């Protein structure tokens, strides 16, 4: 047993909290939490000397003691309303706990179940355990284990086989009314059955002037022939550190469109892993970040292609102002069995700030011979030719620059085919990129 001083993380009232977690958990969950804790204690926080964390420092987090939220009610209802649309199925979690009154999940369409993670862990232990224990992450040093040990609760979404869910499922993780230096551990589990169809948006937002750390985990299984559109939108309070591990498992001939968006937290690190476990699965894995000041966004992705005839398309774009720093690492791993793989990866940056910095690196590891994979990265400023073209059409330079920046953004947002998601992201961006007056 380690003494408190030896632990890699300091959490105030840890023992009481962990006892409470144990009391709330069925046997398997207790053991699983313990496994997560042991792993985290063994590994500690990732360090910059490690390859996967070369450009992103969590030294700040490792140094300070954290608090755990003590309440799960919301004081900023009216602010939250601005994020919600009546047409959607809204699922609101406050500091990690599902908040029934603000959600509209009482009358769900047929084939859709939404409940708390703990509820599912108690009533469908095999189903939950089967997913969370089988999924793997691209980065063994991700903060997945700490979430597993300390998450209080979360959400479980299940779409039955062949169910077609028309409205958007909007999961909103709110951090509200917490003390300085609080850690929250949002958690989601999404099961999409065979031949089912669903669109899910997860928003991470915060209403607090205090700095906090949000360390999220999302696990998803996409059944055979299912079609899923999934978007993760980071819109935390501005002093936040947001780390997230997303693990997705795709079955045979399933189609997945993932979009990862970041724009507000001080530091974002996303670990996204997609496991193509079935033949002929299809993945579109896009992302966008708009950062300024000293914001830092790091996207690490892994496409793990295990079966033949899979296709993937990946486009990540970033727009950087001031002294913002973006990191992109896109790994594509093609297993020996995965013949006739078709992979495309591109990472594009528009650098507007003179002190902004980009570190981008593709990593292709291909162990099958009949494979078509391309990748590329660009880092550039606004194009002089494009500005001249607009100016030659009477548009003054400043307006031309605004239009081109907007164009850079729209070009990637337009890859989101589900309107409600695209419009919401556009709305989030309106502060940084106001509507251009023509």
């Amino acid at each position, binding site marked *: 047993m380690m003494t408190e001083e030896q632990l890699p993380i300091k959490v105030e009232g840890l023992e009481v909290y962990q006892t409470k977690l144990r009391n709330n958990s069925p046997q398997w969950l207790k053991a699983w939490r313990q496994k997560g804790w042991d792993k985290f204690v063994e590994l500690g926080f990732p360090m910059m000397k490690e390859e996967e964390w070369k450009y992103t420092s969590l030294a700040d987090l490792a140094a300070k003691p954290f608090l755990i939220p003590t309440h799960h009610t919301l004081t900023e209802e009216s602010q939250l309303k601005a994020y919600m649309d009546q047409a959607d199925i809204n699922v609101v979690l406050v500091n990690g706990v599902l908040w029934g009154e603000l959600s509209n999940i009482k009358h769900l369409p047929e084939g859709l179940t939404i409940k708390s993670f703990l509820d599912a862990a108690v009533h469908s232990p095999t189903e939950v355990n089967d997913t969370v224990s089988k999924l793997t992450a691209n980065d063994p040093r991700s903060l997945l284990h700490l979430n597993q040990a300390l998450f209080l609760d979360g959400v479980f979404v299940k779409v039955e086989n062949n169910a077609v869910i028309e409205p958007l499922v909007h999961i909103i993780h709110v951090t509200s009314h917490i003390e300085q230096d609080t850690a929250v551990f949002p958690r989601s589990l999404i099961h999409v059955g065979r031949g089912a169809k669903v669109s899910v948006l997860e928003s991470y937002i915060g209403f607090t002037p205090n700095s906090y750390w949000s360390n999220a985990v999302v696990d998803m299984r996409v059944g055979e022939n299912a079609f899923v559109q999934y978007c993760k939108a980071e819109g935390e309070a501005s002093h936040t550190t947001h780390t997230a591990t997303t693990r997705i498992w795709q079955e045979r001939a399933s189609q997945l469109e993932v979009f990862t968006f970041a724009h507000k937290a001080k530091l974002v690190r996303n670990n996204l892993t997609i496991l193509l476990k079935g033949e002929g699965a299809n993945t579109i894995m896009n992302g966008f970040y708009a950062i300024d000041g000293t914001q830092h966004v790091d996207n690490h992705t892994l496409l793990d292609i295990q079966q033949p005839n899979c296709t993937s398309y990946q486009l990540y774009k970033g727009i950087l102002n001031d002294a913002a720093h973006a990191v992109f690492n896109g790994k594509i791993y093609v297993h020996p069995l995965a013949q006739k793989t078709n992979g495309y990866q591109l990472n594009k940056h528009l650098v507007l700030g003179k002190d902004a910095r980009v570190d981008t690196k593709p990593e292709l590891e291909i162990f099958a011979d009949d494979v078509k994979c391309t990748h590329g990265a660009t880092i550039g400023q606004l194009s*002089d030719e494009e500005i001249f073209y607009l100016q030659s059409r*009477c548009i*003054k330079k400043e307006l031309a620059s605004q239009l081109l920046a907007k164009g850079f953004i729209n070009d990637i947002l337009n890859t989101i085919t589900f309107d409600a998601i695209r419009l919401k992201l556009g709305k989030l961006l309106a502060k940084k990129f106001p509507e251009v007056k023509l």
Partner: protein
Amino acid sequence: MLGPYMERIKMLEIKDLRAGIEGKEILKGLNLSVNAGEVHAIMGPNGSGKSTLSKIIAGHPQYQVTGGSIDYEVNFKKLSLVGMEPDDRAKEGVFLAFQYPVEIPGVPTSVFLRAAFNAVCRHQGAEEMDPIDFDKYLRSKMALFHMDDKYIDRPVNVDFSGGEKKRNEILQMAVLNPRLAILDETDSGLDIDSMKIVAEGVNKLKSKNNAIILITHYQRLLNYIQPDFVHILYDGKIIKTEGKELALQVEDKGYDWLIK
């Protein structure tokens, strides 16, 4: 018909223009004079400086003017173009149809052209158009050039074929209604039908108040748009100016006999 003064207004006067890029001189003492109401054709071998001239008139910041002058007169206002911002020149009625139109990802044609159109309106003190009225106006212009409506919402020139891009340039010209239009090889890469449509657009613009400069390699376009003058640009200079028969001679004999 000419006005009571019986004299054409000199719209563009280029004198001894020297210009280049990064110390390399491309235009080497070029003279050109264009009156309102005239159509001029400029021909010349590849690399002789035709596009450079057109971009310098439009104000491309990449080129440095090292000598000479470009004077432009519109509505009794005399302007020296050198040093003016490209958008200020455009607002005064200078229009360039690009040899290689630029793709603008993520910016719909309708947004782009409304920004352009409203900039001119503001400049002329006229009322700006709201999106709905502009949409109608744009559709009417597109119909004129047999352009499919779908281009309205598509990003400017992105995934357009070569010919579609050229047609889009002429559409923009029709929307902005310039006083001095320079068409840099707008005819290259056009099929016969597209060429007729483009020529129609140009002929509609033609009036005693406007001037047109056609840069071309082919006599073919000049069958549809009759030039008043044909110039040969060679090695950064206009080396010959004659009537439209010169284009036929070039078509027939090439440039060698002119260069000697």
